[in-house]
């Protein structure tokens, strides 16, 4: 058995019905799989949602995650896009300490990251950043030196590059 534990991205197209998220999270809990992030939203088709999971584990475990997702009646399509050429993004809002002495330095950092300041108050700023997980991590780390009050992250969403529409995993 391999021991490599890595992050893998799986997307699932699911029926938009009450209880679907419950079924999926119940399966993850019962089988003991680790989700590091989960994002859900409407898909291009009415009545169907698309979920993006970032899962930690060796390739065998991730394959079992995909198979068990597929087994749920309301899950229509499961794709493991970890190995492919993908675009992955998440959005984060960060409330950071900012007084007159630090504000401009923060603005420079925000610029470098092509992030945005979306709210300014007496002693804090809210920074909005979009990017892959590493980019968001780096910005949050940098902002910590000023004192971070609150971080909100959406979790990763991902899509494979090119024209090819996602193909179903076998099984």
């Amino acid at each position, binding site marked *: 058995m391999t021991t490599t534990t890595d992050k893998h991205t799986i997307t699932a197209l699911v029926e938009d019905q009450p*209880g679907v998220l*419950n079924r999926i999270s*119940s399966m993850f809990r019962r089988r003991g799989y680790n989700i590091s992030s989960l994002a859900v939203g409407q898909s291009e088709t009415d009545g169907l949602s698309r979920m993006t999971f970032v899962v930690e584990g060796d390739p065998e475990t991730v394959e*079992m995650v995909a*198979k068990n997702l597929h087994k749920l*009646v309301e899950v229509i399509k499961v794709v493991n896009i970890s190995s492919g050429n993908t675009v992955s993004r998440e959005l984060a809002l960060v409330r950071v300490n900012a007084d007159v002495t630090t504000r401009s330095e923060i603005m420079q950092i925000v610029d470098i990251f092509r992030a945005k300041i979306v709210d300014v108050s007496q002693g804090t700023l809210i920074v909005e950043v979009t990017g892959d997980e590493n980019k968001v991590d780096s910005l949050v780390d940098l902002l910590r030196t000023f004192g971070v009050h609150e971080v909100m992250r959406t979790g990763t969403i991902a899509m494979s590059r090119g024209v090819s529409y996602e193909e179903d995993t076998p099984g």
Partner: protein
Amino acid sequence: MNMRGAQIVCKSLLREGCDVVFGIPGGAILPLYQTLPEFPDLRHILVRHEQGAAHAADGYARVTGKPGVAVATSGPGATNLVTGIAAAQMDSVPMVIVTGQVGRPSIGTDAFQETDITGITLPITKHNFLVMEAKDIARVIKEAFFIANSGRPGPVLVDIPRDVFMEEVDYEEPLELDLPGYKPTISGNNRQIKKASALIQSAKRPVILAGHGVIISRAYDELKELAERAQIPVITTLLGISCFPEDHVLWTGWPGMHGMAYSSLALDEADLIVALGMRFDDRITGNAEKFSSKSKKIHVDIDPSEIGKIIPVDVPIVGDVKDVLVKLNELVEPSTHSDWLKRIETLKKDHPSLRLPETDKLLARQVIRDISEITEGNATIVTGVGQHQMWAAQHYEFKNPCSLLTSGGSGTMGYEVPAAMGAQVASPDGTVWSIAGDGGFQMTLCELATIVENKLPVKFAILNNGFLGMVRQWQEIFFESSYVSTGYSGNPDFVKLAEAYGIKGIRVTDKTQVKTAIQDAMEHDGPVLIDFIVEQEENVYPMIPSGMTVKDMIEEPSSERVTV
């Protein structure tokens, strides 16, 4: 046509081929019950406890191959089903369970007898539904039956609020299933089957390991053809027992924790395992990393998530066992494997496993052998869980397919009484023996009333050792015989108990009375209970302790003098 929700439920059940429903009424399900008289073709069997309804539906389903149907009310009615639903899920038994729910306006308010049964059964059903509008009932029941009995079968629960049963809607025949996310793979991949055939061709020491999937897909003839054509010994799992005739020369027992030593040894020596419709349960593999380490594995299963779950597989084939075997049999060339079969014969001779000691004592094993002899291996055997279950599986010589009903995966004590009831309903003229322990029997014995009420001629053999025998065995072996809470000193007089229900009761205390009692039971037209007062501290052997390997097997106690 205008119909009430409850009428649509009945009509839909009949349309799906359901002819019998096991259940017990209560407040939320009452509108359905009050509708039953309008549908005389739908036979209702009134159980005494909802767990009985679930296990009876399970027994019925295993015998007929059709989904068993159980009905219960909301709250405690529904939660009492849970053990039976979990047992069916573990053993891939098709069931449709209809539960009443509190009325829609009360849902979520902690109303009287409200329980979130779809939430509770989420991880122990194949799928479940909460039907919030009567117009959806027909479609949902159609989908429930289809999901329950296609692909890998399992229980499907349909929860219906009280007022939805009473809601009147225009009934429309549901035409097509709309399940875009549910498409089980039935047909095995030809390229994979070719690879499997090549592996079989080159194997020197192949074994077939046949599981419940062979019975579910009724692939008995195809299994026999493969085994005979390529001369491959056939080992079954516990739930695979009876999928291959036990008097066949290639039959090589069943392996694992309490299986035959020669079966476990054959798996260990094999260079190829052809696993058919089984899931490498820990009772078979012991320590999975050391299980049959010299063999390659072909794994055929309809559920892709079973493949690679426990054991790395060389040739995975997702599909229905029967479909795959038909294609495989066209490719596999005849072979002999004569050296390997000779080796198997030697293993059987050197490790006979199931010998009885010379004794005047009344041994539970002897009772099973005598039932086997008198019924000529033609009875349907329904067991509980524990020592008696293992002895029944070991010592009964099963001649007919699908003739052992046992709670394998979930190990549910108390299965033996209601499941035997369901089996007898499914096969009114068949001989059904419920082999019970004194522990499990007392968990569901209230169904004796149901059995009498419905004139079901089930024969009960209680192997009464006054202990939770298997737990006591573990205490003896692993906890220095410290028998904490396993002795049953307060057992009732089971013969009087039977008589109180109007059932013929027989007590057997001596070895010489066993056969006569069994004969009497067989000749009696109606249910019979025999209380066999057996040796108290017998153990089940062989035994491979949990998580260990074939090298750790205790074949038999060194003290026993044995005869074959």
